[in-house]
C-alpha cells in the first residue's frame, strides 16, 4: 500500500459517545496535510486514531507496518520545569530505538546533534530547555521528532501561543523539511489562515462533518461557507490566501446557522 495511514469507514469516539463517523481517507507517502478545525471539533480524536492511541469503534484505521511517527506535541503537554538540556530532550526521540533499560550511545548523540542542526539550533544543545524562547522550544521538539527517523511527521498545534515571526519561521521550517527531505507531514491546527498557505492538502473537520482535498478544493468560498455555516470570503494578498468571515456573520448566536 502506498498510503501510510488509511481510514476505511472509521467511526471514532470515546465510550458510547461518537465524535466522528464514517471517515474514509488516506495519508499517502509524501503528503503535506493540514488537519484543521475549531477546538472541540474532533481534530485530536482523529490524531489519536492516526497515532494508534485510539481504536475506531467501527470501520478500520490501517497503518503501514513499518510506519514510524515523529510526534511534536502541543507545547503545554511538555513540562518545561524539568531540568533538562536541549540535547537530553532530543535524545528522547531515540529512546524506543535504544531499548528499555539501555543508555544512549555516541551514535545516538551524534544523530541528536544532526537533528538539532537540521532545525538550526545545534549551538543550543547544552542549554537548559527552560531558557529557550517559544520558537526555540518548538524547534527542539521538532528535532526530537526527526531524530527517530520518522516516515510521518505529526505536529499538533505547532504555532499556538507564538508571535508572528516565530509562527512564520516554524511553518517555514516544516515546509522546508517536507520539500528537502520528502518527509510526509501532518499538521494539526485550529488556524486555517496560518496553514492554508503551507500545506498541499487540507482535511477540514467541523461539527461532525469532515472534508478532505487539495487546498483549492477546500479553501474556497462555497465549501467553507457550507462547512462553517456562515458566509466566508477567500481573498488573496501577495500570493497568500486569506480566509475571512463576511462582516456581520460574527454576531450569530452559538449553534445558529444561516
Amino acid at each position, binding site marked *: 500500500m502506498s498510503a501510510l495511514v488509511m481510514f476505511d469507514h472509521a467511526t471514532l469516539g470515546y465510550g458510547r459517545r461518537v465524535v466522528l463517523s464514517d471517515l474514509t481517507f488516506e495519508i499517502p507517502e509524501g503528503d503535506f496535510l493540514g488537519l484543521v478545525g475549531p477546538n472541540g471539533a474532533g481534530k485530536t480524536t482523529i490524531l489519536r486514531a492516526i*497515532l494508534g492511541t485510539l481504536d475506531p469503534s467501527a470501520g478500520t484505521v490501517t497503518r503501514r507496518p513499518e510506519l514510524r511517527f515523529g510526534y511534536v506535541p502541543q507545547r503545554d503537554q511538555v513540562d518545561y520545569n*524539568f*531540568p*533538562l538540556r536541549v540535547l537530553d530532550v532530543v535524545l*528522547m526521540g531515540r*529512546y*524506543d530505538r535504544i531499548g*528499555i533499560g539501555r*543508555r544512549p550511545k555516541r551514535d545516538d548523540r551524534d544523530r541528536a546533534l544532526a537533528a538539532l542542526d537540521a532545525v538550526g539550533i545545534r549551538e543550543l544543545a547544552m542549554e537548559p530547555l527552560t531558557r529557550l524562547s517559544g520558537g526555540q522550544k518548538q524547534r527542539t521538539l521538532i528535532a*526530537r521528532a526527526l531524530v527517530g527517523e520518522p516516515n510521518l511527521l505529526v505536529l499538533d498545534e505547532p504555532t499556538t501561543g507564538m508571535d508572528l515571526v516565530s509562527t512564520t519561521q516554524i511553518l517555514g521550517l516544516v515546509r522546508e523539511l517536507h520539500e528537502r527531505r520528502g518527509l510526509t507531514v501532518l499538521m494539526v491546527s485550529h488556524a486555517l489562515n496560518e496553514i492554508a498557505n503551507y500545506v498541499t492538502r487540507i482535511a477540514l473537520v467541523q461539527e461532525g462533518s469532515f472534508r478532505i482535498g487539495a487546498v483549492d478544493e477546500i479553501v474556497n468560498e462555497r465549501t467553507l461557507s457550507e462547512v462553517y455555516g456562515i458566509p466566508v470570503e477567500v481573498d488573496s494578498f501577495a500570493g497568500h490566501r486569506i480566509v475571512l468571515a463576511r462582516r456581520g456573520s460574527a454576531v450569530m448566536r452559538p449553534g445558529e446557522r444561516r
Partner: protein
Amino acid sequence: MIEAILLFRDALYGALVIALVCSALGVYVVLRRIVFVGASLAQMSTLGIAISFWLAGVGVAGVITRKPVILSLLATLLGVVFFATGMRRARIPADARIGVAYVVAGALAILFIAKAAVGEAHDIFLQGNILGITRGDWLVLLAVSVPVLLVHLLFYKEFLFISFDQETARTLGYRVERWTLLLYLTIGLSIAFAMQFAGLMLVFDFLVLPAVTGLLLARGMAGVFASAIGAGLAAAVIGFSLSVPFDLPTGPAIVAVSGALVIVAWLIRRLRER
C-alpha cells in the same frame, strides 16, 4: 555527644536509608507535581498501621498484628493502584481525589487508633519512632530500598520520559500506564516501609524538601538527584546529631534542618542569578 549518637547508631543508619531512597524518589514526586499523592500514600500507610494496632487491641493475634508493615503495605498499594490507574478516567479532578483519599485515610486512622489499646500509638501520625530502629529494622529498610533504587537506575530514561512528556512516549510505543504504575509502586513501597519508623511528617519531608533543594541548586537531572540525595542525607545526619544530645524530637529536628537547607539553596540560587 558522639557517644550519645553512637548509642543510637542503628537509628541513624535507618534514618540515612530512608533519607536516601525518599530523597531520590522525591525528585519525581516534585517534578511530576504529585507531592500530595506522596502525602496521601503516607496517610494510607498510616491507616494500615492504625488498623493493625486496632486489631491487636481487640485481641486479634497473628502476623498481621505483629508486623504492622503488612497492612501498611497493603493500604499503600491500594492507594498506588487508585492513583496510578484511576486518574485518567475519573470525572472528578485529580487533586480532589487526592484530597478525598488524604482526609478519609487520616480520619479513619485516627478513629482506629482511638479505639486501639496500644500505648502512644498516636505518635506514628507525626513523629514516628525513629530512635526505636534496630539493626534488623534498618537492614529490612535497606533490603527494600536497594532494589527500589536499582529499578530507578535501570529504568531512569523510561521514568524520565513518561514523566516529562507522556503523549510522545505513548506514540513511541511506551505503555505509559504500566510505567506510571511501576513508578508509583516504587514510591508506595518506600513510603510503606519508611512510615513504620519515620512517621508521616518525616516521610513527607524526605519526599519533598531534598528534591526542592536539588532543583534549586542543580541545573541537570543528574545534579538534581545528587543534590537531593546529598541534602536528604545531610539533614538526617545533622538533625539526628542535634536531636540526641539536646533531647529534641528527632523527626522534627531533621525536618527543621531540611527546611534550613532549602533556604540556603534558595539563597545560593539568588546569588548565582545576580
